[in-house]
């Protein structure tokens, strides 16, 4: 059982977002970068499946990004991932901000990886920087693999996997033949934190650097702006006594009732 997990390095969700000088990207000064929160569920699920299969499966983590991603890759190795593959993207490289180019680079890296194609490829549901929710299913389609997004439950079967995903007002179940792609949503599992043993073991694991891949972006970034400030609201009053005035404002001023 060979599993590949694709992970992305993103600003922490608590980071204050300021627009950079180019007006097209954020000012990264002072911003803390972390492993994309949804990708932690994907790494954890890969490790759990590997632990449950006999002989134990092997999980490889893959990231297309600047050299700084080795911190996130090292973090995954410390969680217990067996090997890591870094596909270099020069900082500010347009391909890394384009869904199709990113998917093409990742698909090529997976096709070309030593040891042949994986049985299962896991992604996060979306990256919390561009919020695209695109790359996982794009890679699946480029590789001709079946896939289900936003998975909250996964059960390994013989030659297939059964998964659940939440949709509006319902939970759906899918049967997916292996090899396939799944993107991980909150609730799939509780990601482990690397322990000392893991951190020490990670030091002995290698991060392979693949050849830099080129892919032409299919979109252009015109501008990045802060959202319009919500015009200052006001406190209508205190306690239940303020309710009549609130309802009047909602009806007459905000036309919300």
């Amino acid at each position, binding site marked *: 059982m060979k599993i590949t997990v694709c992970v992305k390095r993103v600003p922490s969700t608590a980071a204050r*977002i300021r*627009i950079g000088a180019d007006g097209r990207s954020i000012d990264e000064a002072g911003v803390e970068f972390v492993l994309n929160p*949804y990708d932690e569920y994907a790494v954890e699920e890969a490790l759990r499946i590997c632990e449950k299969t006999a002989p134990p499966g092997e999980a490889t983590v893959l990231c297309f990004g600047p050299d700084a991603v080795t911190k996130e890759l090292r973090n995954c190795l410390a969680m217990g991932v067996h090997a890591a593959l870094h596909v270099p993207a020069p900082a500010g490289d347009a391909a890394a901000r*384009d*869904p*199709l180019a990113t*998917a093409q680079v990742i698909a090529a890296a997976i096709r070309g990886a030593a040891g042949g194609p994986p049985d299962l490829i896991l992604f996060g549901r979306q990256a919390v*920087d*561009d*919020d*695209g*929710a*695109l790359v996982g*299913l*794009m*890679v*699946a*389609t480029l590789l001709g*693999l*079946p*896939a*289900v*997004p*936003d998975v909250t439950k996964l059960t390994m079967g013989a030659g297939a996997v059964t998964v659940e*995903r939440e949709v*509006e*007002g*319902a*939970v*759906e*179940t*899918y*049967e997916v033949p292996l090899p*396939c792609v799944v993107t991980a949503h*909150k*609730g799939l599992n509780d990601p482990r934190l690397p322990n000392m043993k893991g951190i020490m073991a990670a030091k002995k694991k290698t991060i392979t650097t693949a050849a830099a891949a080129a892919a032409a972006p*299919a*979109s*252009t*970034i015109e*501008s*990045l702006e802060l*959202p319009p400030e*919500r015009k200052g*609201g006001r*406190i*209508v*009053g205190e*306690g*239940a006594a*303020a*309710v*009549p005035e*609130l*309802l009047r*404002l*909602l009806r007459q001023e*905000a036309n*919300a*009732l």
Partner: protein
Amino acid sequence: MPCILAVCEQSEGKLKKVAGEVASEALRQGQASGLPVVAVTIGPGAPSAAAALAPFGVESAGAIEGASVASYSGEAYAAALAAVAQAKGAALVLLGATSFARDLLGRLGALLSSSPASDCIALSFANGAFRARRPVYAGKAILTVGFKATPALASLRPNVFSATKVAGKTTRVETIAAAAAPAKCARRTGRVDAGGGKLELTEAEVIVSGGRGLKTPENFAKLIEPLAAALGGAVGASRAVVDAGWRPHGEQVGQTGKTVAPKLYVACGISGAIQHLAGMRTARTIVAINKDREAPIFKVADYGIVGDVDEVLPALTEQAKALRAAH
């Protein structure tokens, strides 16, 4: 003849609420670009759903049916939609940003070699090209992107684009045989409704959300649900109460929950953490009820009441009920 393809989501012949929003925005972009609009529906019930697009002024629609799309599969639906987009020479393909588009937009991008723009809040057309504006960094910034490939692909955030009715139009419905599905597909084998008839959070016009300030799970039933019912809205929750097991994850609003853009969002006992704001910042009107005058939520709320939920919510529920009864 290039056109704009409006993919109108339906289930068993009934259009989803966002379908009207997609159809109307497609027609608006059609006027801006001079391109004709073709709406498409797909799967069992597609023809009656397509016919139901007339009130939105859609004059030409395709209903995609066939063995490959008789039961739902992301691979099969994406293959069928991509084939129609190519056959019609689509310059722009629009979907509503629901879980339907989360399963299809990426696949369409790979099949049509185009980078999609997901969850858009505005579209524009200028000197021969479409552009899209979409929230990024959980709504803390707005990105404007251009499309270098054809067709341009975009999903539209629900409740943001208006669905406008147009009188006196009839829709000419053409049935389209769905293209074959790829050899390997994920097939949907089951579907369990979670809480029958409950208003879906992302489609609700009014949402009443509760946070840790409710102090107990029982207070949700006692204070939040009656207010939501009085306002005809859905119930939302902060991550704190979802993680505490008081409310299901499906009700969580925010960074790792749902993103909602209702007409009215009432935040009760919610501090207004950045990750919660990420999910409801684009609501048209925000009301906050919190006993702490300095709670961050008050900086975002249009109207606030400083007070205890135990005291304020029952009064608000009663008077809102009386108001609705009077009208």
